[in-house]
């Protein structure tokens, strides 16, 4: 072979190789969490009283009588006796895998157990027992991961992985949205209040997703509202689901209305027909997190930024809901970073993040006046109850005496173990 021919052949081979080797690759190193399943029977057997455990990852709370029921996210419920708010006692822990929300009716604790609803007899808090287990009522809680195959998720394990793949994209990320977003709305909230059939219900806060009204329990998911019949507190059963929009966060019942907070607005559902909530009015606001509380004539909505709900507003909106079919904004008050809130009589309590707990005189909603502030805590949510408020904060749960609203005083605290 002549040198020139060899060169030609070499060039041709090189060119062929060039054209076939222009595939871009990307090697991704990332972390994800995958569920570990267990049979429903095994999960049920795990629901029982245990010795009190330190609070490490608190979630929602409900109070009934002198007991505080505080969820340990994904693991269970702490039972805390605060008959003396100056010396609260952590008396028991109930293991409920996958738990996020909690409510109490009579002597029964309702707690979600991943896709199921567990009904637990708490007559004796130190020795609770599983009373009932309502399967498949929260199928969307884990985005289809636990779509009920007879199993429930008992834990999530962290997986670090590396994969390689071809990358033929143009690399224009202008419209990109690559990352999974879930709301962290399971954190720091509580439930609602009411009674029915001579059985009393627990009281909760503004960031609840379970609401007990008389003998019904209403539970909001990311986009729906579920109705449970709790006439027999020991044997609640699922009634129906209504679609209520997207980005649903909280539910607050007041009399015959449910005030539902979403990331883009507030919905008012009438429950004159208990099993058929009917949309009566809406109020749209800028996208943000927005717990809501209400009374006979007004609704109070806090909007905050810096969350998965987005937005760049930090304010309190006061709405006139005299006509629930056409709620109207009557005034906006600027806040620092408001989270949960509560209304008791003429007092309005706002957990304003790092700015602490703020108490206002809201006798005239169009002219709310500051009364007192509890500083140096990062306040999340609050349940006021006849002069003693239970305040969830970043570092602890506080029992606060607000009989003098101008000078709220911390009575005691339950530290959160990190």
């Amino acid at each position, binding site marked *: 072979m002549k040198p*020139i021919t060899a*060169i*030609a052949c070499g*060039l041709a081979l*090189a*060119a062929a*190789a*060039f*054209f076939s*080797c*222009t*595939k*871009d*690759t*990307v*090697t*991704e*190193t*990332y*972390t*994800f*969490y995958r*569920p570990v399943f267990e049979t429903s029977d095994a999960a049920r057997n795990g629901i029982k009283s245990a010795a009190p455990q330190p609070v490490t*990852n608190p*979630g929602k709370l409900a109070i009934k009588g002198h007991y505080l029921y505080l969820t340990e*996210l*994904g*693991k269970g419920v702490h039972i805390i006796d605060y008959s003396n708010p100056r010396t609260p006692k952590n008396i028991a822990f109930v293991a409920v895998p*996958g738990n*996020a929300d909690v409510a109490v009716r009579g002597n029964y604790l309702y707690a979600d157990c991943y896709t199921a609803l567990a009904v637990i007899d708490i007559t004796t808090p130190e020795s609770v027992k599983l009373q009932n287990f309502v399967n498949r009522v929260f199928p969307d809680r884990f*985005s289809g991961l636990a779509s009920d195959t007879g199993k429930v*998720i008992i*834990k*999530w394990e*962290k997986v670090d992985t590396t994969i390689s793949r*071809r*990358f*033929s994209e*143009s*690399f*224009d*990320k*202008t419209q*990109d*949205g*690559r*990352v*999974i*977003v*879930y*709301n*962290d709305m*399971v*954190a720091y909230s509580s439930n609602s209040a009411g009674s029915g059939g001579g059985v009393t219900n627990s009281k909760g806060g503004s960031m609840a997703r379970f609401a007990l009204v008389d003998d019904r329990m209403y539970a909001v998911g990311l986009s729906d509202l579920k109705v449970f019949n709790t006439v027999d507190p020991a044997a609640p059963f699922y009634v129906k689901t209504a679609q209520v929009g997207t980005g649903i966060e909280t539910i607050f019942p007041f009399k015959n209305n449910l005030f539902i907070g979403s990331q883009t607005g507030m919905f008012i559902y009438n429950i004159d027909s208990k099993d058929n909530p009917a949309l009566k009015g809406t109020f749209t606001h800028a996208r943000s997190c927005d717990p809501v509380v209400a009374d006979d004539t007004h609704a109070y909505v806090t909007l905050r930024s*810096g*969350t*998965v*709900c*987005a*937005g760049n507003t930090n304010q309190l909106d006061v709405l006139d809901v005299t006509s629930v079919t056409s709620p109207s904004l009557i005034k906006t008050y600027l806040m620092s970073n408001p989270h949960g809130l509560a209304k008791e009589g003429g007092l309005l309590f706002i957990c304003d993040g790092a700015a602490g707990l703020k108490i206002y005189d809201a006798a005239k909603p169009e002219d709310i006046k500051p009364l007192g502030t509890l500083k140096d805590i990062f306040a999340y949510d609050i349940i006021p109850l006849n002069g003693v408020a239970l305040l969830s904060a970043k570092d602890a749960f506080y029992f606060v005496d607000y009989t003098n609203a101008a000078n709220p005083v911390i009575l005691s605290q339950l530290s959160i173990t990190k």
Partner: protein
Amino acid sequence: MRALLLLCIFSMATRKVLYAQKDTVAWFTQPGVTLLNGDKYTSAAITAVTGVHYKQWYLGVGAGIDYYKVRSIPLLAELRFESKLKAAPFVYARAGYNVAWALEHQHTKPYVFWGTNSVFNNGKYAAAGLGCYVYRKDDTGVALTLGYSAKGVTELYDETIWNGTRTVTESRKLDYVFRRLDIGVSYRF
């Protein structure tokens, strides 16, 4: 188009006309532009190399701006050997460091509203190829090249994921390797 250019380079390279090479060390500088043909994407780069040559060997260092997918600045060393044929067909190899200089729209923006753009880390750069001169006079000339190059960058960002009980922030790392067929033209002086 690619085949035509390949044929052109090949024909130039096979001319049986000797070209004198100098026996002294001399400086050279060679800026150029390159068409980068990659994975469903075509872009361009500009490069300048300067250094010394002795007889048929050229050794230089250079830098450029490479716009392929993620803009970057290759900092490279080049070794080239030119034949004595009239068109001075040559082979070259480059290796170096690829400094990421991504444009705003090339960053992944995690779909969390308070999220920040990703960060790009630098990677490696390598290239090799063939070429010849289509015009040459004294120490100046215009060369065409056909080559192959690869550059790497690493992208890092935080993402919000579900850990079973709440959202948590974890980091994600993406090591990109971009491979391209290079067709270039450069001017040597």
